[in-house]
């Protein structure tokens, strides 16, 4: 390849080097796609090119970005979590129910829901070696049944969240920086640090890349897996609480629409669904791209049918583009 490219000169060579640059900097390409989509949206809706446009995009992207964070960590280990949206909804419901006891207790109880459900997923996947797709799918069904029944019994009562949670989900710091984006930023920094710099992060990549090799090297694979699912549960709960804060009230359809986008955001961001490759910075861009795309399609006012078709086509095109870029390198 290298000797061949040395021979090629002129325009072809330039195209090759551009391609190679893109392959080496996929994040820059994703950022370019984001900027492009943002500009197109601004062209359609002139008011969008403003601080409030950026703010709206971020506000939309924050819960999706955090759900996609859960998905990213699990996909790095070679897993997936189809129960993230039900965990988010459940956590939001519990938080709303506990809101009369104060925001701190409400948030803690909500996070506890995430931790418990995440642990159960983790036990199934890590110890009993159930396929993650099936384990989390079953868990999602269990949660839907439980919470539908509980809304009439133990969770009957408040469906309004505490003012503090509402401020967290929908309010802004100094009128321009949404608090939910601050939370997302905190999650992002912590997660990127964990994945890149901590030993735990190395193990996540290691078991995703080659589980057998990791086990032979002395990694307690089941513990790493279990912790990843617990983290995923807590992250989903955070996203659910933010969503509840944004809407002010909870219902059982709160987070349902985010399931497929959460997987799509991680995939567009370059995290391999087979594990071991990718990272959270790409996922952030993926979540931003999907959010802008959503605004764009809403502004276009073309009806839900065309929206879904365009959404699917663009996700496919992005994934295809990403794959063909990185495969050549």
């Amino acid at each position, binding site marked *: 390849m290298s000797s061949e490219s040395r021979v090629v000169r002129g325009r072809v060579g330039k195209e090759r080097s551009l391609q190679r640059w893109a392959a080496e900097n996929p994040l820059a390409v994703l950022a370019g796609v984001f900027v492009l989509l943002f500009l197109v949206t601004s062209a359609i809706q002139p008011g969008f090119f403003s601080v409030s446009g950026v703010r709206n995009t971020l506000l939309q992207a924050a819960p999706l970005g955090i759900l996609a964070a859960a998905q990213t960590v699990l996909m790095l280990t070679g897993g997936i979590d189809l129960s993230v949206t039900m965990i988010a909804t459940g956590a939001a419901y519990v938080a709303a129910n506990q809101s009369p006891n104060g925001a701190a207790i409400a948030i803690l109880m909500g996070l506890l829901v995430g931790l418990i459900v995440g642990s159960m997923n983790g036990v199934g996947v890590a110890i*009993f070696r159930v396929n993650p797709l099936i384990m989390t799918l*079953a868990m999602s*069904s269990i949660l*839907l*049944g*439980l919470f539908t029944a509980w809304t009439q019994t133990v969770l009957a009562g408040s469906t309004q969240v505490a003012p503090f949670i509402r401020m967290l989900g929908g309010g802004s710091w100094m009128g321009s920086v949404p608090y939910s984006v601050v939370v997302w930023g905190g999650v992002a920094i912590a997660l990127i640090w964990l994945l890149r710099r901590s030993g735990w992060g190395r193990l996540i990549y290691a078991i995703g890349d080659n589980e057998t090799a990791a086990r032979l090297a002395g990694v307690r694979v089941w513990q790493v897996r279990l912790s990843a699912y617990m983290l995923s549960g807590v992250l989903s709960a955070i996203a659910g609480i933010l969503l509840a804060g944004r809407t002010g009230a909870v219902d059982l359809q709160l987070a349902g629409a985010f399931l497929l986008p959460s997987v799509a955001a991680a*995939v567009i961001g370059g995290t391999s669904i087979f594990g071991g490759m990718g990272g959270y910075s790409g996922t952030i861009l993926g979540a931003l791209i999907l959010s802008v795309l959503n605004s764009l399609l809403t502004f276009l006012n073309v009806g839900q049918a065309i929206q879904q*078709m365009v959404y699917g086509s663009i996700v*496919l095109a992005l994934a295809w583009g990403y794959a063909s870029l990185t495969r050549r390198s």
Partner: protein
Amino acid sequence: MAFSVAIRNPALRILFRNSWALGVWLLLGALLLWYSTLIPVFGPFQITSITKNSLPLVYLAIGQAIIVISGGIDLSLGALLLLSNVIAARFMAGQPLPTVVLVALGIIAGLALLNALVGFIITLSGVPDIVVTLATGYIWSGLALWILPSPGGGTAPEMRWLFTGSPSGVGGSYWPPLLMLLIPGALVAIWSRTTRVGLSLYAVGSNKTAAQLAGLDVRRAKIVAYGIGGAMAGLAGLAMVALTGTGDPRFAIGANATLNSVAAVVLGGVALTGGVGNVFGVVATGVTLIMLNPILIAMRVDSNNAQVIQGVLIAGVMMFGGLVAFLRERRS
């Protein structure tokens, strides 16, 4: 599932190799028996009701099984079901029989081609199956919504008779739905285990590189598998329109159907890693998943609790399977 023990007797070997599929059929038999003691009268009406209601899921699960065996997974099957359902509902209502038959055949062939194209895109792009089909799932359900913006439409009495056993969709004889359940299942199962192309799906699914080095056309295997998946999703949509009498383009129906098809496939003993399992078992688990509902209703379990129990059962069975595999590994 894979066994390293060599068994000489061929009959025993076949039994042993298909032990999981055999197990789920026995489970289905036991459930049927149990169900018949739960309700006062168990007769043709119950058999009709169980078989016709399980048709959409069973078709979808057969398609999913073939795709999973070949090493892929198709998250767009539910959306293809929606597409088939709305096309049928929109173009069959009030039409003479020849048109209805043409529409039905057109749907099956069209969706087979469409999904074969998806398979081709997967081989061409190198993007994982799950991602491509996630995206195409959005496209198909958008298309379904575009064709039929709100629930409606209808179908011909003959179609309803074929899938439900009665021209009005109520009551009727049990043998049409039973045959429609068993014939496609048996055809696909036998095809996949005896023909050259069918066996190549197993080869590609269990080890793509080895299959390629052995001279198999990996691309063709994938395209064929997705084509069959599309055709089965088309059939599932037709069964749906025959069951309900209308078309319904709601996204959630498709998403649920997809997830249930994956659950049925895995419970039926097909490994998501590819190359393992067969279609026979999947037919039984598809029926079992649908049958849980009337059983739990007969036991007077509230529908929310029924959903919980269904989830617990799926997780429980898979945990049991994992435990068995683990113990066997330790012993050897």
